[in-house]
């Protein structure tokens, strides 16, 4: 009867849950605000969002590469 195993397992689970329960949480509204602020601040320098001018595009020529 592995009673001791079950107890050891249950102890570990409780220990883990204690750690996870003990953290500080911030409001979702604050988390969302911070995220939106970050995206707003960095959006202007996001090439995929604002587009890459042809002159600065390292992939501008459409070239298939084949080694077969």
């Amino acid at each position, binding site marked *: 009867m592995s009673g001791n195993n079950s107890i050891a397992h249950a102890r570990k689970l409780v220990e883990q849950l204690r750690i996870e329960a003990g953290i500080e949480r911030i409001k979702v509204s604050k988390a969302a605000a911070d995220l939106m602020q970050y995206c707003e601040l960095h*959006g202007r320098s996001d090439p995929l969002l604002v587009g890459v001018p042809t002159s600065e595009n390292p992939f501008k020529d459409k070239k298939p590469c084949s080694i077969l």
Partner: protein
Amino acid sequence: MGELDVLKKEAETLKTQIETARKAVNDTTMEAASSGVAPAPRIQPKARRTLKGHTAKIYALYWALDNKLMVSGSQDGKLLVWDTHAGILANCVPLKSAWVMTVSFSPSAGLVASGGLDNMCTIVNISGEKPKTMRELDGHDGYVACSRFLSETSILTASGDQTCGLWDLETGKQKQSFLNHVGDCMCVALAEDQNTFISGACDSQAKLWDIRDGQCKQSFIGHTGDINAISYMPNGQAFITGSDDCTLRMFDMRADQEVMCYQNAQPTAGVTSLSLSLSGRLLFAGYDDFNCNIWDSLKGEKIGVLSGHDNRVSCTGIPSDGMCVSTGSWDSFLKIWN
């Protein structure tokens, strides 16, 4: 018998405590909070390069920090290193085991790591004339699904044996193991300061870990299927996961919960991979149905599609300068879009 009952009761109490604490800070949704934000532009990136060279399904790709080299791994048993600007092959690394699931570069790009169904993570030095196998990290009891270098001498792995591992490449030994998932570990992402990392697994959970002491700090629930992909938002406070449940989800670590779910009107295809643009605003997700959807990460709206592959999109990647997005497919091709 008494102690077991007491412990079970305490576990239930703690679970309820966590749920209550999460609800208490759940004062809005990301979608509601972002309703005032201007919609992201409807972008239509063009396929600028099609890289042909693999002869079987591509399973993984990874960009070097120079934003030019990219490595891909295929079940044809090869890793191919591409000079994506010139559109040519730069190197070819034959693998001992063809069953590759993950590839990555070290920060210098002098080393590549690959892992897969051989249960090992193999480190190859590609900075010399010929590729030279440097280490075979042997210790997992299951497949290696993901590997990420912390430095030239340290690497993190995620395994089908339900653990993640931190390895010292100088000794070839595991320095730390991360035990808490109850399903195959499929993906990991490192925090910028490398003190923590996040993992996604087949137990439908994502977890935050302390790298030094191996402790799981937080567990994130919400998905109802295997989590195949995970990536930090650039602000470092949130992350996005992609799953077989056909959704992507954003979790905020300080709010300790899911804050957004990205789901198609007809959710029929699992998510295999994901990448975030430089600001984090654009989310590129590869699906089983051969497409790569582009999502507005803040508003949760689909704003575009990259279509061009003739089979499942298995991997995606965006280089550190954010200049393009690459996709790899079971159709054996890689494409580069911007």
